[in-house]
């Protein structure tokens, strides 16, 4: 594995391998006084975030640090980006400084793909100057395209809680159209053998979703009793004004995870949310903080999954 750009780069064996590595790293750190493994000593990981983020950025940084990598954070504001530098130039600059891995979040779909193409070409000096470094690119969220490590940490959480992913039924609820989390999850969960159900108002369903490996359902209530997990998506504030649905109240009534709705879930079912949560609209506090919720487990699994990703990219997958 050279880059992690999309979950479609991962077949079931590779994805399972990453989850297994994450588990092993989690066990290795368990109960340790000094949470530090020497695995990536001397390697440099740069996080480059063109959008605001708390959990993803910190999660990658901690993952790098626990593996003894040197981690450097770059943000769009306060860097040469604010002077008008192009993504290509910033990306190649980081490569030329010797970044072994660049973790990127960017508002444009496909940015990580472009950076990988530039990095690969520049590593060998294809038609121009060489950076001298083979930089791996990790997509930490590109526009409305994908967020592969989120899907991996969701898979890790589901596997923990449900014992397995294959054969489990998972609903993804909300703004699928604009969600990179939904895209990564639908395809990764399907690759891992889950049965995926998507529930959303028709205005927030992507064109051609009938060709995705999932089923579309108009009714959350009808699905809840047979689910093993339900994943609530964030509704971005700007969507409220785009005529996608009449009001946040009506949205909450039809698609919000209220206590009454949560009660329809089987006892073993898990509630996931990628965060940040809009409490009240998508999910009520009693459910978000309740016993079925795995929201915080998602966050802690995120560190281990990202450690596994860095490990596989920079040190190679273990045999």
């Amino acid at each position: 594995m050279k880059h992690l750009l999309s979950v479609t780069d991962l077949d079931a064996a590779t994805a399972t391998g990453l989850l297994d590595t994450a588990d092993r790293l989690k066990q290795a750190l368990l109960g340790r006084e000094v949470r530090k493994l020497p695995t990536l000593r001397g390697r440099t990981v740069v996080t480059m975030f063109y959008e605001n983020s708390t959990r993803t950025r910190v999660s990658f940084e901690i993952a790098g640090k626990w593996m003894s990598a040197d981690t450097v954070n770059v943000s769009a504001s306060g860097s040469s980006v604010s002077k008008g530098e192009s993504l290509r130039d910033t990306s190649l600059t980081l490569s030329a400084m010797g970044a072994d891995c660049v973790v990127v979040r960017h508002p444009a779909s496909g940015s990580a793909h472009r950076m990988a193409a530039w990095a690969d070409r520049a590593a060998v000096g294809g038609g121009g100057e060489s950076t001298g470094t083979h930089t791996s690119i990790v997509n930490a969220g590109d526009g409305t395209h994908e967020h592969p490590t989120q899907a991996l940490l969701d898979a890790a959480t589901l596997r923990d809680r449900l014992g397995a992913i294959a054969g489990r039924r998972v609903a993804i609820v909300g703004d699928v159209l604009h969600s990179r989390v939904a895209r990564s999850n639908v395809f990764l969960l399907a690759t891992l053998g889950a049965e995926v159900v998507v529930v959303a108002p028709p205005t927030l369903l992507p064109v051609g979703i009938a060709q995705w490996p999932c089923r579309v359902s108009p009714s959350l209530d009808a699905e809840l009793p047979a689910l093993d997990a339900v994943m609530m998506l964030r509704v971005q504030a700007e969507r409220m004004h785009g005529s996608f649905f009449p009001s946040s109240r009506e949205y909450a009534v039809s698609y919000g995870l209220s206590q009454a709705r949560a009660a329809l879930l089987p006892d073993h079912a898990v509630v996931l949310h990628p965060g940040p949560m809009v409490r009240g609209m998508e999910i009520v506090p009693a459910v978000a903080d309740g016993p079925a919720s795995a929201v915080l487990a998602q966050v802690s699994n995120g560190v281990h999954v990202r450690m596994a990703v860095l490990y596989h990219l920079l040190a190679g997958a273990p045999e």
Partner: protein
Amino acid sequence: MNTELLITDVRPYGGDAVDVLVRDGVVAELGAGLDAPEGASTLDGGGHVLLPGFVDLHVHLREPGGEESEDIATGSAAAALGGFTAVFAMPNTDPVADTAVVVEHVRRRGEEVGLVDVHPVGAVTVGLEGAKMAELGTMAGSRAQVRMFSDDGRCVNDPLIMRRALEYASALDVVIAQHAEDHRLTGGAQAHEGVVASRLGLAGWPATAEETIVARDCALVREAGAALHVCHISSARTVEVLRAAKAAGVRVSAEVTPHHLLLTDGRLTSYDPVNKVNPPLRTAADTRAMRAALAEGVIDVVATDHAPHAAQYKDTEWQAARPGMLGLQTAFSVVVHTMVEPGLLDWRGVARVLSERPAEIGRLPDQGRPIAVGEPATFALVDPEAQWTVRGAALASRASNTPYEGMRLPGVVVATVLRGTITARDGKVQT
């Protein structure tokens, strides 16, 4: 100065081989075994196909203001090498071609370069802003003799402004060329709204945004008694609207670009913005519909929408990249590949869609004429058998944003002749 040219062994419209004697820019004799008058220059036609010079209703030459991507000299060279003898330069320059001063400048620069007739297209509205009609009459009456107006790149979205422009144009014998895109339906759009863009997370440009504007404009032009030309149609559904309008006698014509005849949104998975264009590349079913409609005549012409962009505007993330692709030097080859080889068009048909109809629509009396005695000696001499490999860096345009990079295509333009003067020959511009 020698004003005689003997072109030997050419096959007009792919027919029997003849020689063509040109005197003072006009065909003086046409027949087998003509002798070269003393002092005449000669062009060995090599048994290739002779067509009337191509006319492109839709190019962006970027001058004034965008010279880092193209200028009138480099764009004219690309045109001549592509077999074109007349091009219509769109007004989205800086400053916008919305006054007589700018259109006259473009016309004059074209004449100074002298490789191809450069006809400036005037803006329909001031600054392409869609709000206030530009001085169509002044531009039409200027030395530039503007005959086509368009806000290309943007749609004249306001139905009242479009109606008034059509009505006003009807008295000037000019044509309004519409970039059909309802901007309310394409806000933030990055790619054809379909399965591919949806999976890639690229905001969709729905085909209905084109279809609805074309339907609306056909209704408007019918009332106004004017002439409407629809730029770069891209969707199968728009073809159905046009077919119905034409059957009802509406004065509407339409163009399709070479890239919408050949390329599909399947190319987008690399996110390489060389494939980004407006309207976007659509589905294979759409390209099939474009080809069939062009063969049938529902779509009148092929126009390139030649849109050079310097590397800094293209070698970026998808969303930041400017839409558009080079087209002048690859248009003929794409037409051979998509239309001639499958038997959808013969050489008469190619002459129709690349020369005769565009000259009619653009109101050019001396282009797209028959190959006959007394007619202008304005030709494209083409070798349909030869193949070539497209290399953006080797094209005459200043920019190199061709989507056909590395592709092997059939059909080579051997020579281009504009009123008896050879403008391009064997891949080199004749200056």
